[in-house]
């Protein structure tokens, strides 16, 4: 069975004297990035992601890395792409308006197969929306936010320890699949201070990137294989392009080459969903209702499941940590015996439509808010009951 990250909410500590700190999710992201070997960061100030930028500017040089405040979001992600192709492990952080400006370069990262971690600290949209107001409105946007519709990976933490663990995981997956990986968080998860057991952070030790010093920069035979990276200044000269290219990085319109490249961009991720799927399953025997949540809404969802059980109501819970690709195998396990799925989200049902697509005959019900307030425990309990 596919395992999610250990459910930190359900863990019990056996430590006699608790070892706790009081931190926010942004701090956990910065620590996760540094522990994952991040050496380059570029970002542009935007609420509620600025905390990550400021901390990276302060912390990254301490490990010999480089952190830049770009002249805008386009420059920031552009610098990350250049630095990664020169051997750096890069991250950037922004919010919805910044993702809009990243859009074209997200495509370059997909096309050129550039590992890059992109943190989206969601705020209420559309447009500048509510800078200090929580929302989960970017859940489809990050998936489909660049031309072409090619797959990306999106992870969503629901707590401070998950913010750390999933940042590390994001780097691991970006390296593994040579693609942009989004860490989709939000104003509350990034900025809420929480007591955290310091022993709850997982060990982070990512191996150095496999690079090669000569030969063609790309290969897509077999289609799902990911070629080791070439880096500028290491070994022979090589080419990179954001345009449709052959294995040598030369622009091509040859249909066989074009098709092979594009099928590769899909297959390398879609054929390896099992390496990406992460769902925190909290299943109860005999339950017919499943509360399925992600990100900040998982807080109320977990509390609602707890409360309902204390009232004798059988209910299962699932917190999706890998939003894209949709973790269909893990969710298939969660759906067993379930006839109703309740999906609370701070949007009008953006992820629910994906659940509906794979839920078969099951009833899929939303609990939704777009007014900047969190969904309460009672609101979920009412719908389940």
């Amino acid at each position, binding site marked *: 069975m596919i395992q999610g990250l250990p459910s930190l*909410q359900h863990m019990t500590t056996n430590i006699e*004297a608790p070892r*706790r*700190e*009081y*931190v926010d999710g942004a701090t956990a992201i910065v*620590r996760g990035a540094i522990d994952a070997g991040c*050496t*380059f960061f570029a970002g542009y100030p935007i609420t509620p992601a600025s905390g990550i930028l400021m901390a990276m500017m302060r*912390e990254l*040089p*301490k*490990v*010999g890395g*480089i952190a*830049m405040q*770009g*002249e*805008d979001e386009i*420059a920031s*992600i*552009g*610098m990350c*792409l*250049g*630095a*990664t*192709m020169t*051997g*750096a492990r*890069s991250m950037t952080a922004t919010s919805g308006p910044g993702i809009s400006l990243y859009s074209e370069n997200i495509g*370059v990262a997909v096309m050129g197969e550039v590992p890059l971690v992109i943190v989206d600290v969601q705020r209420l949209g559309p447009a500048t929306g509510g*800078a*200090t107001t929580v929302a989960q409105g970017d859940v489809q946007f990050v998936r489909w936010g660049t031309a072409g519709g090619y797959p990306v990976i999106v992870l969503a933490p*629901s*707590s401070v320890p998950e913010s750390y663990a999933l940042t590390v995981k994001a780097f691991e997956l970006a390296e593994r699949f040579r693609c942009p990986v989004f860490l989709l968080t939000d104003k*509350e*998860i990034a900025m*809420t*201070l*929480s*007591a955290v*057991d*310091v022993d709850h952070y997982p060990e982070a030790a990512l191996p150095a990137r496999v690079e090669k010093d000569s030969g063609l920069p790309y290969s897509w035979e077999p289609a799902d294989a990911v070629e080791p990276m070439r880096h*500028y*200044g290491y070994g022979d*000269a090589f*080419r*990179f*392009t*954001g345009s449709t290219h052959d294995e040598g990085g*030369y622009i091509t319109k040859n249909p066989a080459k074009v098709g092979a490249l594009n099928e590769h961009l899909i297959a390398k991720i879609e054929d390896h969903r099992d390496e990406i799927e992460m769902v925190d399953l909290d299943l109860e025997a005999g339950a017919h209702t499943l509360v399925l949540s992600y990100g*900040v809404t998982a*807080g109320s*969802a*977990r*509390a609602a499941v707890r409360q309902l059980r204390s009232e004798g109501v059988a209910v299962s819970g699932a917190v999706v940590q890998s939003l894209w690709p949709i973790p269909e195998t893990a969710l298939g396990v969660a759906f067993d015996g379930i006839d109703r799925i309740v999906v609370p989200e701070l949007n009008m049902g953006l992820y629910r439509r994906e659940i509906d697509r794979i839920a078969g005959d099951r009833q899929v019900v939303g609990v939704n808010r777009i007014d900047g307030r*969190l969904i309460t*425990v*009672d609101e979920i309990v009412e719908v389940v009951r």
Partner: protein
Amino acid sequence: MNTVTITPISTFRTDDPYPFCPGCGHGPILDRLNEAMIKMDLDPAKVVIVSDIGCSGLSDQYFITSAFHGLHGRSITYATGIKLANPDLDVVVIMGDGGTGIGGTHLISAARRNIGITVIVMNNLNFGMTGGQHSTTTPEGGVTSTTPLGNLEHPLDICATVGVNGAAYVYRGSSFDKDLADRIVAGMQKPGFALLDVWDLCTAYYVRSNKFTRAGMEDSMRSWGMEPGLLYDRVTSEYATGYRAAHEGIVGTPTMSARPIPVEFEATLNHPMSLVVAGSAGGKIRSASRLIALGGIRSGLWAAQRDDYPVTVKSGHSVSELWLAPEEMPLTAVTQPDVLAIISDDGYGKAGPYLSAMTANDLVLTIPDYADLETDAQVVVIDPKSAEKRIPKTSMGLVYLAAALAMTGPYPLDALRVAAAAGSFSEVNLEAVETGIALATRR
């Protein structure tokens, strides 16, 4: 004895002919770049040519160096990342006047930063690849496919723009310049940002639409006030090197890591408790809430605080929702606080939903202004004027929260005192804590 003869590279070009139109100046400019790299005896594996979109974006494919071919107008951003990651590389940007326009902010920022890249603008005064539309450098009156009656905009002076903004090396010339290769060498060898604005003829469009010639181009430069030649030549430090030098002293120092807060007290709280403080931004509301949480953690409790405020910094409301709990709990909104402290008009403006949800077992602490507020909760008015000393606005939140702790007793007050003493502004905070406790006890 064996002798090894090192032959300098005779060309950085591939064998492929350029794809440019007959008479186009792009090929000659690239030939001068090739000559420059030969003169410098560079290692092609240590050179990255960064290009973007348009006819100029075809250039990199004709060199044996490394290449990064990216988005329209963004070549400078990639080049910056490459140079930052490895300052030993020679990074050359080839872009057109189109890319210069769409990426104008990158041009200015790269000049200000003096990142050590060399930008060659192949400036043919219009968009050659997409049908001869006008660009930011199209002269006033210039006829293009999008200015059929003549351009109404003033042309961008690329050199002046980067020059006044700090660029180390700025040269304007044309594809016909005999010494262009030497100018490129000088730019590439110059520490800091170098830009060569190299005008050339677009024989497909601009030349045809405007009867534009080599002589006309050279005359035009002067008549438009855009003098050719070496325009700026400054001594500056290169950014990527400068960044490393500036941070050298902190490399290897510890990064922010988890530091456990000691648990020295025992809490009495045996159920989750929520406290909300509703005040004004600039009143240290979040810091006050944080100290209450830290006192709880020092007593073995779990804590979490969710803060709400507008985009403004020191105006508007500031509301902090704080949970204290004996067991770890998921993050949820506070709907019915056990304690609500209203300490300003801004705070009262946000208190409505809490007040209407609160019941007889809950407690409201308020400033005298709201003594008559409507709620089912118990209301306790605390008059800050009754304190022995005047309470600063920035201590109000902590005073009321300390009073709330003194009245509800979830954990020992000494834990709060220790937390206050351990942090920054300890003197002011300790005084606020004692004031709050005194106001609660005297009541």
